[in-house]
């Protein structure tokens, strides 16, 4: 892998150049402490020191709602041709890159999801390092570093970014303005090492996931699920903000004037009461504790048994968002005790 350094003050010039060649998506501040991904509209709007956007990057590959095809009473089925330009998402933290890796696996298992991949294949990533806050759990989930998925990754040092160039696309971006990049000096490498150590010591929140799959299975009938299900509002917010929750619903709508039917898919949540309801009225997961438990079991065990990786990236969004103040660390501690 190739490493370069770039003077921090030249980042605006670099992003301006990338934006001229690709569609650039960047994090922007939205409210007082909230951030969101937006198309690049000048460097002054770019947030470089932030922790998490409200909605994770999954929105770019699996939009909250998308039309799959159109059909009328007599016409053929028409699939909307998506001719989007190649996009680069800037500012992805390690946890979100891990999240994309997990989605890639999920949308490939049993055959590639063409709607997901037609966007995903036309997207590149510029990662950005971060420092943890009280919600960050990436260290516990082993997602605090990433060595794959991204094209470029920028580690923030005092004066420069240490840039890891992972792919040929990353190299293409560098070559758009080669004058901004140079070999790292010994001093910069030393600073990089210090920063990693410093960051490691900043994690205050730890979730013990030792043998968690066994514990969750053994405590399948635990009262803990019942207790939390009284507190949970089943609003689905945790699912919407989760970088790896991928469930969707498929449904039709017909325009009465044109007689054109559109088939949609939109995000769905396993917390919803009729999520597992089938025709005839049987609900395979109707009770509140069952629904609450399912999300934890699927995050920590279900997916891991298929792909060898738990789907929690430790991004902290669910804990920060939950209106009932339910925190994954607390739930896991309750199971462990």
């Amino acid at each position, binding site marked *: 892998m190739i490493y370069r350094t770039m003077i921090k003050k030249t980042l605006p010039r670099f992003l301006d150049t990338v934006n001229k060649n690709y569609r650039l998506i960047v994090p922007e501040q939205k409210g007082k402490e909230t951030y969101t991904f937006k198309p690049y509209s000048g460097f002054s709007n770019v947030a470089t020191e932030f922790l998490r956007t409200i909605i994770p990057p999954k929105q770019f590959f699996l939009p909250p709602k998308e039309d799959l095809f159109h059909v009328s009473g007599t016409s053929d089925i028409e699939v909307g041709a998506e001719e989007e330009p190649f996009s680069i998402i800037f500012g992805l933290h390690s946890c979100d890159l891990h999240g994309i890796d997990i989605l890639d696996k999920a949308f490939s298992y*049993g055959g590639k999801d063409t709607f997901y991949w037609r966007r995903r294949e036309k997207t590149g990533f510029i990662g950005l390092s971060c420092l943890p806050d009280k919600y960050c759990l990436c260290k516990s989930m082993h997602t605090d570093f990433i060595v794959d998925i991204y094209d470029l990754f920028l580690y923030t040092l005092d004066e420069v970014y240490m840039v890891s160039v992972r792919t040929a696309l990353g190299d293409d971006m560098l070559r758009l303005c080669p004058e901004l990049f140079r070999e790292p000096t010994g001093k910069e490498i030393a600073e990089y090492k210090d920063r990693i150590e410093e960051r490691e010591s900043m994690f205050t929140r730890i979730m013990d996931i030792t043998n968690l799959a066994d514990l969750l299975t053994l405590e399948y009938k635990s009262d803990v699920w019942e207790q939390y299900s009284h507190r949970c509002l089943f609003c689905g917010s945790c699912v919407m903000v989760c970088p790896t929750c991928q*469930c969707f619903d*498929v449904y039709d709508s017909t325009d009465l004037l044109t007689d054109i039917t559109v088939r949609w898919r939109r995000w769905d949540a396993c917390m919803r009461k009729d999520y597992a309801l089938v025709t005839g009225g049987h609900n395979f997961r109707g009770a509140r504790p069952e629904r609450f438990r399912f999300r934890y079991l699927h995050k920590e065990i279900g997916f891991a048994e298929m792909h060898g990786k738990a789907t929690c990236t430790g991004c902290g969004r669910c804990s920060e968002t939950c209106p009932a103040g339910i925190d994954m660390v607390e739930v896991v501690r309750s199971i462990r005790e």
Partner: protein
Amino acid sequence: MSLVPELAILVEKRYLDAQHSLFRFVFNDEDRRKAFSFKPGQFVMLSIFGVGEAPISITSGPDEKGFIDLCVRKAGRVTGVLHELEENARVGIRGPYGNGYPVETMEGGNLLIVAGGLGIAPLRSLIRYVLFRRERFGEVGIGYGARDPESVLFYGEMQNLLERTDINCMLSVDSVPENSRWQGQVGRVTQLLDKITMPLEGTSVAVCGPPVFYKFVLDKLLKLGYSKGSIYMSLERRMECGLGKCGHCVVGHKYTCIDGPIFTYWDAINLPEIF
């Protein structure tokens, strides 16, 4: 793999009883019609545009080419509208999906098929598969239980099977109304299993029916001594995609739509939420 169906036409609608009909579909595209092949136990996603999509198991046999038969109960939104459709109506079909019965494993051994109610729908496909190549199987037993004489599906076909000497087929109904002229057996399908004696060694058992039926039949099969690994059951779950993506059919670490819907009893009891 795609969430986009292909256009198909409803060419024939056969009334079975007040709740069930057999629908025959052909793809518009001739090449697709010829190329479509499937295994018994697989299903398709049937679209009625403007209404929605539903997973329905295939009822015709894999050797019957050019069309797809679906035996459907009038039960929900999509199936309700399906029953109202006239012949020549346009629908969408995608699939086949699911693993299907492991017919390659079953061949060479004996096969016991146990159906309850509408559970006959996917098993009819398996029965047709067996009839087409009867010589490849050892002993074949079929037990079919229905609620009452009125709700025996495919009665004519069942009569033919009852008369065959190379298949031990039995049919019974749970109860008979007073004015009925039912001449056949009355009782639970589990009672049939006492009469259809098969060797325990080298016999696969394919079971399909409603939840309460599974409970009694699986208990009975274990009491008779069948191995959990030789009993194949078909799971029903909500499905939005059929492709292992939407999440609705997940049980533990399995997607019912692509890892199933056919699971051995042993695999099923190792999934959380099943029993």
